[in-house]
């Protein structure tokens, strides 16, 4: 088992390394932004480029890049600098990428954390309820609602939430409270993030509900459940002790995957509610052609995605001892 886990982790890093190399080369092949400032400033930019090794061969730069990542002691940021290319909008000028990441990541994590903390219990409860009332009107109502919510794109609810809660009724502010004035886990912060949290949870609730309904209703038809009833267990006992435990085998890995996913956040929801999170950072870095940021974020997103898949896959074996991992 341990051998299998280690093998999977090693494989993950190999895949990550290949993707990272490809992305690095592709990003480095992009045209270098033209220098928009003139005179002495332009010279400074050129000097900085030279100093940062932009004129070296790409693979040499790549080696330097990796060296910088593992050079944590260096105070000037281990993920490289945002280059000062005189782009006009020098948003992250001379700020180490790592510091900006550290600053933006909490917003994304907090919003997503709240949203899944709301979504998981609701989704599970609805799903279980629908499964227990299968083919009755309650199930039809829940299933139809879930189908609608799963199909409609997430930004459409975001628009609805924003229009009704923020404009029409004016219950919530349009912007997120800043971290200087409010603690991340304070009520003010929660309230200012609520529209985003709500829009994010819709999808998760529906998805989880559909999944748990399908799993539980499949489990409920099993013969061992009939046996449990004939042994004399009450319906509640049979469901909680036998059906739920089996139904949870595929559900729990999915929830774990959701938890890993909170790091990457949602680009579009962060865009709509102007949350200064990591998704917004990616968009900004693309808009500004800030390739160092784009590169670091690519690495970050890739790693999160791979780790999510890995954790989901491996968790099956830990949750259900009957599943032999790595067995052919």
């Amino acid at each position, binding site marked *: 088992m341990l051998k299998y886990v280690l093998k999977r982790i090693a494989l993950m890093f190999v895949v990550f390394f290949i993707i990272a190399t490809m992305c690095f080369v592709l990003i480095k092949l992009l045209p270098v932004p033209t220098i928009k400032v003139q005179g002495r400033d332009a010279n400074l930019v050129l000097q900085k480029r030279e100093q940062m090794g932009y004129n070296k061969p790409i693979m040499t730069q790549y080696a330097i890049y990796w060296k910088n990542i593992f050079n944590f002691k260096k105070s000037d940021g281990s993920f490289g600098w945002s280059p000062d290319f005189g782009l006009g909008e020098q948003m992250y000028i001379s700020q180490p990428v790592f510091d900006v990441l550290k600053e933006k990541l909490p917003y994304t994590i907090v919003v997503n954390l709240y949203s899944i903390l709301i979504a998981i219990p609701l989704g599970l409860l609805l799903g279980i309820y629908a499964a227990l009332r299968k083919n009755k009107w309650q199930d039809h109502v829940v299933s139809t609602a879930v189908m609608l919510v799963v199909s*409609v794109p997430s930004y459409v609810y975001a628009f609805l939430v924003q*229009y009704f809660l923020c*404009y029409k009724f004016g219950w919530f502010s349009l912007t997120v409270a800043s971290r200087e004035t409010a603690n991340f886990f304070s009520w003010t912060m929660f309230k200012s993030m609520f529209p985003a949290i709500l829009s994010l949870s819709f999808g998760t609730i529906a998805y989880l509900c559909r999944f748990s309904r399908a799993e539980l209703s499949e489990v409920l038809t099993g013969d061992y459940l009939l046996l449990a009833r004939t042994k004399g267990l009450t319906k509640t006992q049979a469901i909680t002790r036998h059906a739920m435990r089996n139904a949870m085998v595929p559900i729990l890995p999915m929830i774990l995957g959701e938890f890993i996913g909170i790091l*990457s956040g949602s680009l579009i929801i962060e865009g709509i509610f102007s949350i200064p999170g990591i998704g917004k950072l990616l968009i900004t870095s693309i808009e500004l052609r800030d390739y160092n940021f*784009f590169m670091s974020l690519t690495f970050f997103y*890739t790693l999160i995605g791979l780790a999510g898949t890995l954790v989901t896959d491996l968790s099956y074996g830990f949750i259900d001892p009957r599943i032999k991992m790595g067995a052919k």
Partner: protein
Amino acid sequence: MDYNNLPKDKFVFAKREGKIADKKLETKPIGSFRDAMRRFRKNKSSVAAAVIILILFLYAFIVPMASHYTIEDRDGYYKMLRPRSKLFSWLGWDGCMKQQESQAGYDYYGSIGFEYGQSAIRSVQGKEIDANTGNPIYQVYVDSYEVVGFTYVDLVKEEYEALKEYQSKTGIQVVYPMPANYKTDFVAVTNGANLWYMLADESDKTSGEARDHDEEGRPIYVANYLKKSNKTYGQYDSIRLNIPGDGDDGQYYVYAVKNQTGYHLRVLYKEYYRYVHGYYADHLFGTNQHGQDIFVCLAYGARLSFLLAICVSVINLFIGVIYGAIEGYYGGVADMIMERITEILDGMPFIVVATLFQMHLSRKVGPVVSLIFAFVLAGWLGIAYRVRTQFYRFKNQEYVLAARTLGASDKRLIFRHILPNSVGTIITGTVLIIPSVIFSESMLTYLGIVNMETSGYTSVGTLLSHGQTYMSTNPHILLFPALFISLLEIAFNLFGNGLRDAFNPSLRGADE
């Protein structure tokens, strides 16, 4: 009877001439497709979804051709018009909007209609007196098409003559007298063409008594047109239409002011629009902030989305089927290597792939083609995975072994014997690629990563992002694209689920 020595003449040939063939089947054979179709048709919601998809599809392809608006028609005056439908005007779909106006604004909107007969204010829904200032505040329901009112246009001589001829031929008044240089107290509007009036006894306003309005608060307008005693005097040249009282006192209204290039005139925009285009403006979904018709823009965006999605799903179908078939059929080393490739492709975040393709290729091959590349790069993984699973399931079955023993080639085994088993999943997978591509495309264009707003086309995401800017004041710009994409996604998901169930033979008879 001696069975060993049966007399020969007892034997008769059953059939000597002709070929021996099976009897024709009495009943109609039901192939797997026909069976799937039969089950699909039983699923009412999927059939409804298919009809909706068809309607949306027709909308996307017919409207850009049939409508007299195009995406490049940008009307500078008819911006952000509200949606208007003749059929559903009783539902509030009448091109009007609620607005809060001060007394001056109320007078202003009233004046537009007062001059030519159709009021911009459809109804006054309420009147309050502001507690602090004592000024009245009106809740008015104004027609967004009439709010534009009058505008100034500059025409060269020939155009001016043509307009005059049009007026005298049809009897429709387009050109109205120029207002005299005078300011009313309505300051919010810089478009002076609508300020043609003076309020009665306005000079008394300083005394505090509002005598320019009658007892019910309705303004009393007094025309304040520019007048000259000689209609051909100096630089002025006016056409005179039948306005009572004009010219009685030897003073004539001025309809056009000559300038270096031609004539400066004041026109009723509604009629002028009709004169130029041949029809009145009428926008089913309203117009956006550029004055484009949303109904048409959305159709252009939808057409692009459909074309893109169909293109992508067909390409993905081919790559996925071939890749999955090779993986699943040959197995072993080939499978292992190919699986690693899929793992790498699967690990690349889509947003990064799309951005990189956009940055590298959009200048060479255009944004749409580079978007197709981005979708194709990892889009076929799902189909390949399904096909691979099916191959693993079927490749060791007896019928395949039998075919192989009879000498069937690999190609024949793959495409004739094993692949048909996975037709159902392939079709379902291909159909379900379409909504996901449309969603991702709208997301990328919404975020501005892909810019499709070059001349001649737009995308649903671009429309959404424009709409979001004006959400608080003009929600209709956002509403229709959002509604369209929601409807499309719902319909496609229902349709896809219906197909999946229809192609699943284990459900045969389950609902009968």
